[in-house]
């Protein structure tokens, strides 16, 4: 494979991945923000009719706003991670592959994904508590909710982070050697 063919293929694949990731991001925001807004503020009956909420419960506006803000934080953290991934793909599209900035971008994607998934786990723990906070009888405590998907994503993100780290170190060592010579 000649460098020209390689560059053209990388550009093609990167463009396809950018298109897919952008479509995913738009749909993710549409679904997640829409659901969080409708559930907490837009359609008050959705919360009241939830199967874990007692009929006598009256949901305070402050609880609704807290619930919305908490999930918006998780959604925004995930969004930032996806935007970082788009930035990385765009660097590949431009042919900027073996440099320290790209290696750092790989690390950023991994690191931001880890933050987003930790936030998802943390706020998942208070989800049931907030939902049932105004129940008169059955109130759920703050409790850890196991979600294997979060941990799988963390595992993938850790691999990306470590890969970016090793790549960055290799590039820095190479630059130091060149400068020395």
């Amino acid at each position, binding site marked *: *494979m000649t*460098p020209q063919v*390689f560059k053209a293929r*990388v550009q093609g*694949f*990167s463009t396809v*991945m950018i298109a*897919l*990731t952008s479509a*995913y991001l738009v*749909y*993710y925001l549409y*679904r*997640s923000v829409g659901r969080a807004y409708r559930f907490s503020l837009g359609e008050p009956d959705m919360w009241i009719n939830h199967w874990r909420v007692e009929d006598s419960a009256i949901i305070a506006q402050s609880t609704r706003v807290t619930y919305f803000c908490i999930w918006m934080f998780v959604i925004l953290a*995930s969004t930032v991670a996806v935007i970082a*991934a788009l930035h*990385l*793909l765009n660097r*590949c599209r431009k042919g900027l*592959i*073996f440099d320290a900035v790209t290696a750092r971008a*790989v690390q950023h994607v991994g690191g931001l*994904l880890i933050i987003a998934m930790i936030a998802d786990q943390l706020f998942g723990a208070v989800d049931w508590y907030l939902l049932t906070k105004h129940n008169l009888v059955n109130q759920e405590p703050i409790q850890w909710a*196991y979600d*294997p*998907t*979060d*941990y*799988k*994503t963390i*595992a*993938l*993100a*850790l*691999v*990306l982070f*470590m*890969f970016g*780290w*090793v*790549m960055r*170190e*290799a590039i820095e060592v190479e630059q130091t050697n060149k400068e020395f010579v």
Partner: protein
Amino acid sequence: MPTSYVKAVSTLVLIALGVFLVYYLYRSAWFLVQFSFVDHSLWEQHYLVRGVVDIPFWLRLAYFCVWMVSITATTVMLLVAMHFANLIRSGGYFSVQMIHALNRVGVSAVIAGFAIMAASSVWAWMITFQNETERRDITFVYDSSEAGIMLLGAGVIMLAWVMKSALLMRQENEEFV
């Protein structure tokens, strides 16, 4: 060779992945065995099941196999991720071998994500297969988390391919010079 700091972090990552793998298998595979074969009441008294039903063995086996695909793919993904962390821990430099491991992580992530979405789509259909009323159809289930894992896996595959090709081309050029 990676610095001792990178090695120490990769050791921690290796341990964390190992702990998660054990816990994941304990929770997912063990529950699946219980649900499919050991405790028959779990299926027969499921909230989607209507009336008194007798679940045949072939259906239990099919349900088990459908979910085992995703569990196996996830297990492979975690094992390859552990292999990757071990490569760094044992002093592996940025190499084709490391990029191969990265590629395998991506491939198994895509398979795992796809398998879980497919299993989720047939799950309710299988559970209610013996119902006389209120049977569920096969319905495509979109899960943004699993779709995200598939996309991330595809991104990892692409990154590994780009890095491998670029590394090999550079090595060829250096040998030529």
